[in-house]
């Protein structure tokens, strides 16, 4: 695996091209020469796109923003895995040193009914936004911020909430899941607030609304394969899914409008 600093690779790239949401897409094959192992995966795409533009062809559409693994925009399904062959990284943090000279790399968009393809490799993840809007917030009092130590939070709860809050909303969990389930994402968002005192006010209504919205968006049902946890670039744990299930059970049993 991988090769030394400064080396160059020749690659065959099979990329999914799709004009728009309604169009039926297909794969397009490109030969790339002299790709530096120091490039990121997205930089390799930049090189390809520049070549396409020079040739008068249309550049490949793909999502990206921060390119430092924090925004959650990049989203490529590379050689059968979301965010490619390395664990715990986003597509933008994947480097060409993870590939070998002569490799064929298949790149597809996230495939999910709830994430329609906008164009080529870019998918519409606003289903996640609607889930967040349905309850993934806390109501706050306006006015001066109170003293930070006014509200005491046990270290364990803070750690777990922090762990859940690391989710960047990339959607790799949905892409990895054979059922196209969004449980890992939603459970991270439910957990980060359910664990903290500030999240208690809307605790019950939140989980009810967010799960209802998740189901409405057309995500599949979780079968606990654990593929989401294994592919999540931020190490979000399945414990969050169990917590969300508990939250939903207790909220369903006790919540009154």
């Amino acid at each position, binding site marked *: 695996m991988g090769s030394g600093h400064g080396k160059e690779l020749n690659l065959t790239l099979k990329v999914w091209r799709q004009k728009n949401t309604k169009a039926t897409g297909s794969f397009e094959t490109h030969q790339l020469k002299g790709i530096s192992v120091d490039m990121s995966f997205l930089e390799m795409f930049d090189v390809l796109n520049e070549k396409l533009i020079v040739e008068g062809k249309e550049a490949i559409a793909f999502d990206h923003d921060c390119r430092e693994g924090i925004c959650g925009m990049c989203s490529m399904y590379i050689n059968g895995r979301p965010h490619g062959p390395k664990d715990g990284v986003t597509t933008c943090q994947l480097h060409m040193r993870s590939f070998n000279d002569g490799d064929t790399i298949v790149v597809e968009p996230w495939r999910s009914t709830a994430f329609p393809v906008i164009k080529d490799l870019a998918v519409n993840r606003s289903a996640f936004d609607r889930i967040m809007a349905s309850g993934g917030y806390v109501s706050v009092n306006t006015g001066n911020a109170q003293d930070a130590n006014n509200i005491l939070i046990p270290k364990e709860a803070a750690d777990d909430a922090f762990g859940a809050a690391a989710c960047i909303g990339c959607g790799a969990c949905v892409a990895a899941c054979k059922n196209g389930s969004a449980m890992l994402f939603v459970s991270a968002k439910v957990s980060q607030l359910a664990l903290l005192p500030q999240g208690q006010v809307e605790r019950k209504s939140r989980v009810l609304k967010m799960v*209802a919205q998740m189901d409405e968006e057309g995500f599949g049902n979780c079968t606990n394969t654990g593929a989401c946890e294994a592919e999540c670039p931020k190490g979000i744990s399945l414990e969050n899914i169990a917590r969300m*299930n508990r939250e939903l059970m207790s909220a369903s049993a006790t919540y009154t409008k």
Partner: protein
Amino acid sequence: MSQGFLKTSIGKKIVMGITGLFLTTFLIIHVSINACIYFNDGGKTFNAAADFMSHNPVIRILEIGLLAGLLIHMIQALRLTMENKKARPIAYAKIDGAANSKWYSRSMGVLGSLLLIFFVVHFANFWFPTKVAVFTNHEHNSFESMKLVFDQWYFVAIYLVGVGALCYHLLHGIQSAFQTLGINHKNYTPAIKSFGVWFSIIVSLLFASMPIAMHLHIIQ
């Protein structure tokens, strides 16, 4: 619980988990009774146990519950599978499933279908004849019918495949049910998982040993 709960994706999964665990507990009873053949007393102990199971009224009520559980488990599985198919209408061209999950966790539907086919054979072999005997008030020697069935190598083969499917179905199913029920805790989950693994393997090995032992006439 509010009405909508069972309609949520999580509620549906919880139904799968509870019925699955319920069916699993029955395996303990089933395998224990079958293990009576190892007294090797010409089926005396085994027949007595089987007779108790087919005539005791409490057991017969439980049996109805069991069949209902099985039915719900299957129907729900079918529904969930169809919904999940809809969630990904276009398949990936390349999938590296082994990189992120166990093959049997991704094959519960196939394993379950194999089990269903096996159950048809199994029920026709034993459950149905026993029922007929009970309802027509005839004597039924379960031990003798077991001997007859397992004299045929192809039945032994079918049973081994069935038990294999059961083993892998349980390997994923048991720990999965606990996770679905929200029981995931750093202190207890490792124990639950290893319990699930040991349970699946021991129960399956016991079940598998019986057709073999009878076929080889170790049990007579």
